[in-house]
């Protein structure tokens, strides 16, 4: 579904991604870990089309389409969803009105008619229960005054509503209390199916006990330096990143 080949990108003249290769198939769950500043959010931003990043080399294919040719909104309409590490607040725009606009824009792109108010509310109710999202947050302005955890849960609620093919979750687990973490992960597990793929960016092995990944990648200095399965996450939890960095330097000095 998603193929990233030798992806290089820079921001403000600074090289951040330095040759990412990644293949994600339908139904797979990939975890990306790595030290602060290694380029995880940057990778997510480049995939979503944030325009302060310049791709200098490489390709990204999504369901046979050249993703890098598409505008951010068209990437979203094609089925790429990014749960932001830092969701922004948009005062004055109600959460519900925003979601309705988003959903109908995506539907229009796919040639589907806009949802009627009743159908929309039904869907909202259903998804709200699925991810256990507080109904009193729905009529409030988008993320305005939401607590850190509420913002993260709103990202998962939007994910449930918009039903993308590829969901990239950037540290959705940070800032969640234990209960919320369980609720969010169980929401993600419920949304998992054979057609959908996930990229979960996290610092904590704990999350991966709830959401079992098929692959774990370590991103370091703009490159994926190791790929493994969930055991790799456990190892990282115990040993940190230094041994990997050493391994890398050894390899590079050979």
């Amino acid at each position, binding site marked *: 579904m998603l193929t990233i080949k030798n992806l290089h990108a820079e921001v403000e003249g600074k090289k951040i991604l330095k040759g990412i290769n990644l293949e994600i198939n339908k139904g797979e769950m990939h975890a990306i870990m790595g030290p602060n500043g290694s380029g995880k959010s940057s990778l997510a931003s480049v995939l979503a089309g944030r*325009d302060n990043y310049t791709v200098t080399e490489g390709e990204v294919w999504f369901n046979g389409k050249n993703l890098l040719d598409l505008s*951010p909104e068209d*990437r979203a309409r094609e089925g790429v969803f*990014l749960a932001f590490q830092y969701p*922004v607040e*948009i005062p*004055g*725009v109600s959460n519900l009105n925003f979601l309705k606009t988003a959903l109908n*824009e*995506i539907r229009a792109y796919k040639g589907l008619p806009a949802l009627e108010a009743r159908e929309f509310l039904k869907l909202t109710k259903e998804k709200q229960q699925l991810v256990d999202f507080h109904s009193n947050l729905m009529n409030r302005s988008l993320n305005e005054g939401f607590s850190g955890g509420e913002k993260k849960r709103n990202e998962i609620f939007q994910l449930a509503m918009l039903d993308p093919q590829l969901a990239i979750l950037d540290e959705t687990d940070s800032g969640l209390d234990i209960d919320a973490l369980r609720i969010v992960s169980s929401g993600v597990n419920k949304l998992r199916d054979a057609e959908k793929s996930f990229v979960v960016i996290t610092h904590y092995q704990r999350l991966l006990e709830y959401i079992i990944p098929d692959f774990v990648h370590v991103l370091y200095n703009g490159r994926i330096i190791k790929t493994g399965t969930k055991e790799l996450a456990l190892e990282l939890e115990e040993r940190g990143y230094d041994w990997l960095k050493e391994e890398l330097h050894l390899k590079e000095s050979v």
Partner: protein
Amino acid sequence: MINSNEIIDDIANKEYEFGFTTDIEMDIAPPGLNEDIIRFISAKKNEPEWLLEWRLKGFAAFKKMEFPKWQHFEMPALDLQAVSYYAAPRKKKQLNSLDEVDPELLATFEKLGIPLNEQKALTGVAVDAVFDSVSVATTFKGKLKEMGVIFCSFGEAVQEHPELVKKYLGSVVPHTDNIFAALNSAVFSDGSFVYIPKGVRCPMELSTYFRINAQNTGQFERTLIIADDNSYVSYLEGCTAPMRDENQLHAAVVELVALEHAEIKYSTVQNWYPGDKDGKGGIYNFVTKRGICKGAASKISWTQVETGSAITWKYPSVILQGDHSEGEFYSVAVVRNKQIADTGTKIHHIGKGTKSRIISKGISAGHGDNSYRGLVSVGPRADNARNFTQCDSLLIGNQCGSHTFPYIESRNKSAMIEHEATTSKIGEDQIFYLNQRGIDSEKAVALIVNGYVKEVLNQLPMEFAVEAQKLLSITLEGSVG
């Protein structure tokens, strides 16, 4: 990726939708401002002697005045001698019904979305259509007459109801008020007149649509609305003008009088030609609007959505004279390209227990410059007066400006005056967030702006709120910074 400057240019080049001209035979007075032209206008309109006298007094006052200097923009050079003070579609004879109105004119208004044919007209809205200097038609007059409501052109009111005109004309905005009001008093051509009798709730929205067509003319209309005891009226004005390279002056005067327990809601959707992206052409919208809550427990509410004009310069005001009377001002002012707005309100609390509420939402894009200027004054007799002011600015892009000048003068210790102000910017990260959910940048801006102005648009009658919302999204199309 498209950069923000390209997008900003994009909107700037967007055509003004109402910029066409109507080709019609006109009576146009030669340019120039002098007593002769005033006598000419007065004679053309067959006015009584007292009104001519009043005009001449206005002219005398005008000659003694100078242009103000306190505004937050450079006063453009105005050559008032180069303006023609009278332009009217030539009519063949006295009109008795709509069927006799020039079809070209009817077509013009239809094109503007203001059908004057009563069958086609919006239900529940009576319209007075003003083309250049004169009113060409007023719809639903018969129906209103049955209830005793007078809704007609100003000229007609002078002929048919001189006692009302004489009593109230200049009673809220005297001919000496300011230089533009003085000029208007001298040369005003037409406008609308409304009288709502005691105890009547006007059953439909009353609306005036102003259209400037002729070149090198000014438009100086006067509106006078009187709501007698226990009556209610909601009134709306709309305006457009052709695209022309020269600036045109629009210096209107609006006077509102609310008697005991009466309520007047006055709404404006102003979309005069704003000029092109370099600031060439456009209307100078220098208008004096003031209402007086004369009677106890009366209420006047101004709502304005200002998207057009090269310069918008006006402060719809309320004098709260009656005890427990109430004044409101809701405003959305949008500037883009090189547009300038210096607008706000003045509320004078005179009576006891008077209340006022001011909600101002400025939006600046491109190189636009938006100023809110407001005065809340509380007199010594105004025990327990209350004011709440909320004054917000929204910036789109990095080259626009926004300023607030709130003035408070309180001479009564029991008064409570609250002022809140915010400035925010539509951020790239907000736009990107919405993009990432499948919403394109145009829609994203519209979504944010609509959320921002909701509180004001909610004050407009339903049909107009929808129109205003559309107008805002067209105005701001592409202004993502």
